[in-house]
């Protein structure tokens, strides 16, 4: 199918330009659909887990090796503020293992689900590991999410301040973190922000060890966290 899509795109126009345009459009749509899967688009939002590597690590192999190639998010030099107003760098945010998501506090739709997903992960961890895993929410809406809003959100969602860190920052730092994580987002005219629901597991050195696209089944994410804790 891939081949046929490419052939369609690369083939010389069989007929006048209109036909070529339509053919090319159909080809493009094929290309768009193939790698992403229309079948899933028609159904429920299936969770997508991806280990950031061409080949998933074999059981027992160190995840750190897989993550090394993409470098450390700590090297981005980003600065944020937490819910107390204190300046924070990613490297200074608890852990050593961190689970990171980008949300915004006035988000009515999926953000509560993202937070719920992270809380399930938190609840599933053995108590002994709690001190070693940090949960980090970074605001996609820094203009409206000041430290006070973050604090109110944390209280409302009953997030344990010992483990949860909520961050806001300059527009540029937020944009950069989103780009580095692969979070896609766009402000809509209605004040809402369409965005990826992406959970990222960072190792102690700030490298991406695992990413979960979508919601619903955090088993692979939990497994990635546990591998890092071993």
């Amino acid at each position, binding site marked *: 199918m891939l081949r046929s899509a490419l052939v369609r795109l690369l083939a010389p126009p069989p007929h006048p330009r209109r036909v*070529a345009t339509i053919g090319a*459009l159909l080809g*493009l749509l094929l*290309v768009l*659909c193939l790698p992403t899967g229309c079948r899933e688009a028609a159904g429920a939002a299936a969770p997508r887990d991806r280990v950031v590597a061409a080949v998933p690590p074999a059981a027992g192999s160190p995840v750190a090796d897989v993550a090394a190639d*993409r470098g450390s998010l700590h090297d981005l030099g980003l600065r944020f503020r937490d819910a107390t107003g204190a300046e924070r760098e990613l490297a200074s945010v608890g852990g050593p293992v961190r689970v990171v998501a980008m949300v915004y506090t006035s988000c009515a739709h999926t953000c509560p689900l993202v937070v719920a997903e992270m809380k399930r992960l938190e609840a599933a961890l053995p108590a002994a590991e709690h001190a070693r895993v940090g949960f980090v929410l970074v605001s996609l809406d820094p203009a409206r999410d000041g430290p006070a809003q973050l604090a109110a959100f944390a209280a409302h969602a009953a997030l344990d301040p010992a483990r949860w860190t909520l961050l806001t920052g300059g527009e540029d730092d937020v944009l950069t973190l989103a780009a580095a994580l*692969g*979070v896609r987002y766009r402000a*809509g005219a209605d004040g809402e922000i369409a965005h990826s629901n992406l959970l990222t597991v960072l190792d102690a050195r700030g490298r991406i060890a695992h990413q979960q696209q*979508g919601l619903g089944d955090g088993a692979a994410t939990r497994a990635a966290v546990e591998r890092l804790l071993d």
Partner: protein
Amino acid sequence: MYRPLAILLLALPLAAQAQPAAGARHGRAVAAAGRARIPGGSYLPLYDRGAGRVTVRPFALDRVPVTRGDFLAFVTANPEWRRDHVKPVLADRGYLADWPGALDAGRGDDLRRPVVQVSWFAARAYCAWRGGRLPTTDEWELAAAAGRTARDASRDPAEQRRRLELYGRPRPDPLPPVGGTPPNAYGVRDLHGVVWEWTRDFHSVLVAGDSRATGARDVALTCAAGAVGATDPRNYPAFLRYALRGGLDARATLGSLGFRCAAS
């Protein structure tokens, strides 16, 4: 998950203006021509965000893409951006890999060709170094909607045909020196038909898993709805640009992806 899409798209015949001789002649003069003032205005994005036309404030945009020579000056002055020094979080392994050496971007015409195989991080750092920034997608698309004389030629059938032809041509190797295409109504060249270009918010395109997981907000970008939801289904080049942006990640470096800078 984005990589296969990006690779497929780049396998497409990328447009190119086949005027290397003219480009070589004009390259140096044009590269020195700096930025054009774009008075601002509005354009209709390929995908309506619920607000119809998008208003863009006045800005300045480089008349031509950043060249290898320009970028060589940047990496020379900022060694942390040399290909042998760059931090892996900022660029993948293809970064400037097409240069003969870490501080050798080639000779003669090579220095006037658009720089490619640069990541979004590197492109952004270059623009900041030059006292500018990457253009937003809206700014880029507004400038790119202009034809030779009209500021909005996006619905002009002749201009659409010309672009289809440009985007349908195979990409020459090596790329032609910058400035080889005629200026548009703003005096900006090479927006179409030379290289794809980074924008500051390339990651504002939501595709595939993202839109499904987000709900139905961006369903217009997936599968068959990709054409149905578009404001102008005949604008094939715009489909290509949106699909490419949707497939990129910020560390990516591609042989057909360069950039230019803007300023407010």
